[in-house]
């Protein structure tokens, strides 16, 4: 099928304003939050109605044209990167909250609704939607489901997969399926789990039922300073071991503290090698008791200074530095590259010192600002894309950090997704049989491979080529494949 056939078919089927084809109209869709990768799609479709989404999918299936779904385009792994020969399907116009059911603590929302607007809409009932990725002001709930987004509070409240109850989806053939339901579970396989985090490879999400939680009576933050990253890491372990699950537990290392302090004056202690931000929430009585215990635990772990937020304004100020960390890096360096590996917490000290060593080896500075409580690292590699070869070296360093995460029993992505960015590292985390199982699952939903092809799950050939470049521990990955 030529490009012209699908374009004609789309223009014939859909209202003119839903189909964008001029290069200047396509430009805003050339990348998602990972702007190092750019590609203009063949066409952008922005449907107004469910029927138009169905028509688009049916036409793509009929013409064998690939489809990449997009929410707000804030993803950090290139999951919504368009395909040159494909349709970019924007769900932006599906931006309504359809129903809030207070007694059942759920809301039905369309996929283009932003994460934060759900919490804002239900705040009047004393409820909120727990997952809070840092892009929550802009990111769409549909994208959150596709990526199984996390955030600062997942240590206590879980990821997207723990906080949704049902989905309406369309298959590539335009068939509508209801996944999950109004009960807490559904008969048959747990397709809700399978679809959450499937990065647009299995189906198109058209509606989401999210779970709502009662807003805690109060939240307070303990800010603890340590004279070494190791001591701060030990503080993290000690809090968890004491039987407390903080709502959030974040670590900033010295380079991150310095960068933040230059950017906005948060009052983080300047003599600290690392600080921990430990948020506790619940009833006033519980929070007071927990703060007392956390203070003691941090003292025992060697904290050199501790402050407790006295009011909401101070809590926000403590968090402001954490939230400003990425833009603060943007001021220090022309470009930065954010990694997203997760490791078992007990290896924190080893992994951070290895990252420091690799940073020196590559001559690229790295700051660490991350979700320490759940071992989700976000090393930020500072680089300058205008210097020849620096982006390539940055990507190589990033890749090695992810491989280190896998080597200690962790994963290449905790919450940002694989997308196109980490597709090579998937070959490190999974063997051929496991990748083949993933492909078989994909084929059960999308036998012609038209939904977001080339993302999330690498082909075995791709792994063979990648393995030829990276021989791990002297072992050749995927030895069963022929080498070309």
């Amino acid at each position: 099928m030529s490009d012209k056939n699908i374009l004609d078919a789309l223009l014939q089927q859909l209202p003119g304003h839903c189909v964008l084809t001029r290069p200047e109209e396509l430009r805003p869709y050339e990348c998602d939050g990972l702007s190092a990768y750019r590609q203009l799609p063949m066409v952008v479709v922005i449907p107004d109605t469910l029927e138009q989404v169905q028509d688009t999918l049916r036409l793509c299936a009929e013409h064998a044209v690939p489809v990449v779904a997009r929410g707000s385009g804030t993803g950090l792994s290139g999951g919504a990167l368009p395909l040159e020969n494909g349709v970019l399907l924007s769900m932006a116009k599906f931006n309504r909250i359809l129903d809030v059911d207070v007694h059942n603590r759920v809301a039905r929302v369309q996929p283009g609704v932003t994460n934060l607007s759900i919490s804002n809409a239900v705040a009047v009932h004393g409820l909120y939607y727990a997952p809070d990725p840092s892009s929550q002001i802009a990111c769409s709930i549909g994208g959150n489901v596709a990526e199984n987004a996390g955030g600062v509070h997942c240590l206590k409240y879980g990821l997207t997969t723990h906080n949704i109850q049902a989905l309406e989806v369309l298959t590539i053939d335009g068939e509508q399926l209801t996944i999950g339901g109004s009960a807490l579970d559904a008969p048959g396989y747990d397709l809700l789990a399978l679809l959450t985090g499937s990065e647009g490879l299995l189906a198109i999400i058209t509606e989401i039922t999210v779970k709502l939680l009662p807003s805690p009576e109060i939240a307070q933050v303990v800010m603890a300073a340590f004279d070494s990253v190791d001591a701060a890491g030990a503080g993290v372990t000690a809090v968890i071991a004491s039987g407390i699950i903080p709502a959030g537990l974040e670590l900033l290392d010295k380079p991150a503290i310095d960068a933040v302090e230059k950017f906005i004056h948060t009052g983080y202690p300047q003599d600290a090698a690392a600080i921990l931000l430990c948020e506790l929430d619940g009833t006033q009585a519980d929070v007071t008791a927990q703060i007392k215990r956390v203070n003691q635990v941090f003292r025992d772990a060697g904290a050199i200074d501790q402050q407790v937020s006295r009011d909401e304004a101070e809590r926000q100020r403590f968090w402001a530095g954490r939230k400003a960390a990425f833009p603060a890096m943007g001021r220090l360096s022309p470009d930065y590259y954010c990694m997203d590996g997760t490791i078992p917490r007990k290896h924190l000290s080893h992994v951070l010192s290895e990252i420091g060593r690799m940073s020196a080896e590559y001559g690229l500075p790295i700051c660490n600002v991350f979700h320490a409580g759940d071992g989700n690292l976000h090393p930020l590699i500072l680089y300058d894309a205008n210097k020849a070869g620096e982006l390539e070296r940055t990507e190589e360093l990033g890749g090695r950090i992810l491989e280190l995460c896998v080597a200690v029993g962790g994963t290449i992505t905790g919450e940002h997704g694989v997308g196109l960015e980490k597709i090579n590292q998937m070959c490190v985390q999974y063997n051929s049989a496991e990748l083949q199982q993933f492909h078989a699952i994909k084929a059960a939903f999308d036998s012609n491979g038209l939904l977001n092809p080339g993302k999330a799950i690498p082909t075995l050939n791709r792994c063979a080529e990648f393995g030829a470049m990276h021989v791990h521990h002297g072992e050749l990955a995927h030895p069963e494949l022929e080498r070309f």
Partner: protein
Amino acid sequence: MSFESTLQERVKAAAETGTALSIQGNNTKSFYGRTTGGETVSLADHRGVLDYTPSELVISARAGTRLSELESVLQQEDQMLAFEPAHFGEAATLGGTIACAFSGPRRPYAGAARDFVLGANCVSGTGEWLRFGGQVMKNVAGYDVSRTLTGSLGTLAILTDIHLRVLPIAETEVTLQLDCDTATALQTCNALATRPLPLSAACHLDGRLLIRLSGMQEGVQSAIKDIGGDVLDDATAFWTQLREQQLPFFADERPLWRIAVAPASAALPLEGDTLLDWGGAQRWLKSDQPVETIRAVTAAAGGHATLFRGGDRGADVFQPLTSGLLSLHQRLKQAFDPAGILNPGRMYREL
């Protein structure tokens, strides 16, 4: 030869000859699902905790590990399986529990079995040994297969090892009882659940609403004042008997139905005796009403009905799927077990 490779050989051979395999731990859950045949594959001797560092909040164990052993290891460190699984027998295994996705009274407030599964190793129907997920809290690399296997009744793959997130045992646990009818109970426990209270279970039977609170001393004490009612003595025994279906309510010859609906749904017009658990989201029904009636009434309320114990085990014990979902299930079964040898028919006749 390792346990895994022996198991792989066995599955490969069965796939070649099309021999159905019946996967078992200690066979405590044979009452559940549809009746099936097949050669027994036992995981009972594949047992033991593989890794447990309490401060990681993760435990890894072989599928044949007894649930009681796992819970006692956790209890020594003041931790627990927060989904509070039913055992249904002293010899119950972790693998069987995860394959059935059994979650107990704490489920609506703490999460279900699948919410605590971080990873699983398994042997697929083609005899491949596969590892999905892992020992970390956050992992979005690849499809979430380990959660998908949870509750799949052994029809997709044979679980060999499981990684679970665990939680600290609460400092204090108190159960309150309030006298009220069903409608008031549903209204009360769902209104309470919209407020930041340390709820950990809510059930209604015999005109009594029982509300369990778990948390720190301070928070639980203030919630007791807030909610009122009388403190129930020997509450641990009560919740265990509820979880294990040992209360007098369950000692009844009629089939036992599990009705899953939105928690605040009004009482359903069904004949028989009902016990509300999960704050109204899971309703146990003892009834002789026809299957079709129970299914239709439950579906009309937006829920689904499972013939949990008794009745015709050769018929559909789970709510039938829509044709679109059923064919997707069949394609997924095919993707994991193309020869159709793993627990065929245990979940649905067609799988």
